[in-house]
């Protein structure tokens, strides 16, 4: 354990933690734009700067480990001024179009601008001016809104291991890009959308087909139904419509999803989606009740089994079911039907 003082109060905390982690634990809110607990500290956005007595300059709390006797100030004038100026610098190279920006309401830059009272970027000068990359089927990339926190690049590298995007050029000219301007749609990108999930601003945005503000939605925790992994995610529901998906962080998938989970939700409210069973009568599918459907299935099974024996029947289950459901299914085929003809789509 280590003893230190934060904002005049003494604490005893675990060794090997960073100042940021300790502050999170004890409920002191420190702003961050480039930090993600799943990734190596990056210390680029400089929003988490704190003053540590004895150090010449302000220190980034995300990359400073606690030390015995450390005296930390997280919100004094010097720190607040620096954070405000950092926000001013970021906003001076960022379009102030929150009124129409899709990200409004879930944008960290907007939230901090509000918290720190920075109305606009006050430095007048060159601004980034690059075309929007809309070549990916599922999301768009607007370089002008990018604040170069590097989260997308690092998630793509460290967590997704795809390395589709990287930094191009250096200094003020740095941008996140695909090699040789090939565009995301033509790059190594697998559209997992994990970069989109971590983007703190409106630079990487899903191609929504419904306009919504975050405060109009409620989050519904669910299990992704595409495969048996069971990733947890939150559906963003506006009225009775699913308008977006966010990965859950407090579960084993730890903020990650694949292309299906992240972007494959539009079937839910799709007009072609089946909502009741259909039974073919006189060559045409006709809507039926579940009771009717079950009865028909049972009678067909019984008929077939009586006529041709149990081995005339086979069961195929789905990778979208859980292990338990699949277990149940093979048990049903063997014990209730009496055949070993059972298989699974993932084996194909």
């Amino acid at each position: 354990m280590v003893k230190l003082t934060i904002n005049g109060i003494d604490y005893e905390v675990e060794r090997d933690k960073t100042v940021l982690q300790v502050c999170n634990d004890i409920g002191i809110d420190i702003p961050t734009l480039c930090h993600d607990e799943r990734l190596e500290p990056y210390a680029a956005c400089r929003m988490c700067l704190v003053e540590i007595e004895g150090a010449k300059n302000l220190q980034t709390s995300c990359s400073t480990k606690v030390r015995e006797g450390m005296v930390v100030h997280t919100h004094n004038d010097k720190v607040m001024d620096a954070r405000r100026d950092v926000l001013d610098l970021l906003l001076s190279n960022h379009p102030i179009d929150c009124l129409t920006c899709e990200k409004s309401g879930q944008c960290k830059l907007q939230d901090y601008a509000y918290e720190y009272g920075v109305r606009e970027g006050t430095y007048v000068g060159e601004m980034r001016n690059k075309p929007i990359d809309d070549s990916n089927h599922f999301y768009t990339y607007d370089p002008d809104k990018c604040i170069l926190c590097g989260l997308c690049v690092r998630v793509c590298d460290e967590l997704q291991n795809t390395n589709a995007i990287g930094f191009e050029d250096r200094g003020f000219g740095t941008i996140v890009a695909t090699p040789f301007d090939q565009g995301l749609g033509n790059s190594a990108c697998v559209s997992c959308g994990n970069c989109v999930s971590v983007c703190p601003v409106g630079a990487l945005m899903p191609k929504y087909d419904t306009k919504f503000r975050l405060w109009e939605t409620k989050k519904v925790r669910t299990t992704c139904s595409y495969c048996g992994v069971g990733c947890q995610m939150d559906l963003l529901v506006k009225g009775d419509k699913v308008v977006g998906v966010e990965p859950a962080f407090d579960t084993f998938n730890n903020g990650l999803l694949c292309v299906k989970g992240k972007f494959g939700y539009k079937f839910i409210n799709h007009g072609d989606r089946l909502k009741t069973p259909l039974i073919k009568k006189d060559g045409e599918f006709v809507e039926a009740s579940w009771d009717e459907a079950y009865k028909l299935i049972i009678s067909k099974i019984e008929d077939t089994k009586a006529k041709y024996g149990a081995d005339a029947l086979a069961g195929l289950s789905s990778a979208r079911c859980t292990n338990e459901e699949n277990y149940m299914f093979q048990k049903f085929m063997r014990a209730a039907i009496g055949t070993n003809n059972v298989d699974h789509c993932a084996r194909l």
Partner: protein
Amino acid sequence: MEFKFDMEKNKDKVEEFRVFIDENRDRPGVLMPVLQEAQGKFGFLPEPVLELISQDLRIPLADIYGVATFYSQFTFIPKGEHNISVCLGTACYVKGAEKVLAEIEKVLGIKSGGTTPDLKFSITPTRCIGACGLAPVVNIDDDIHGKLKVEDIKGIIDKYR
């Protein structure tokens, strides 16, 4: 203007380059030396060559592209037959390097960093080359031209035509 790179026409060079990669692949941190070799051999970094490096060294193309665009020595357009480096260090600057550069741009009709369409000349602005005693200094290939005056420029360039 675009400069296309023909892998077929440069087959021998590409083969030599692959041998270099093969001989050096076990050196840790080999990407920089490999890119330097490519820049030296082809005069610039052609896109197909970077793809080849990516395959041979199993380094993602995005990472290689990031490195290649970070360092000012690497270029994606070929250098001309004669490379004119204009020193823009402090000593040269205070002795009028800006005017010298402007004159060179005027004489060649290209901007700093560019290459003439006939691939004869390139202009490369350069950080201090440590010949401050001779300021302002321009290097053409390996020749140092020091204590330059604007009116000398045209005559000097003409010697390389």
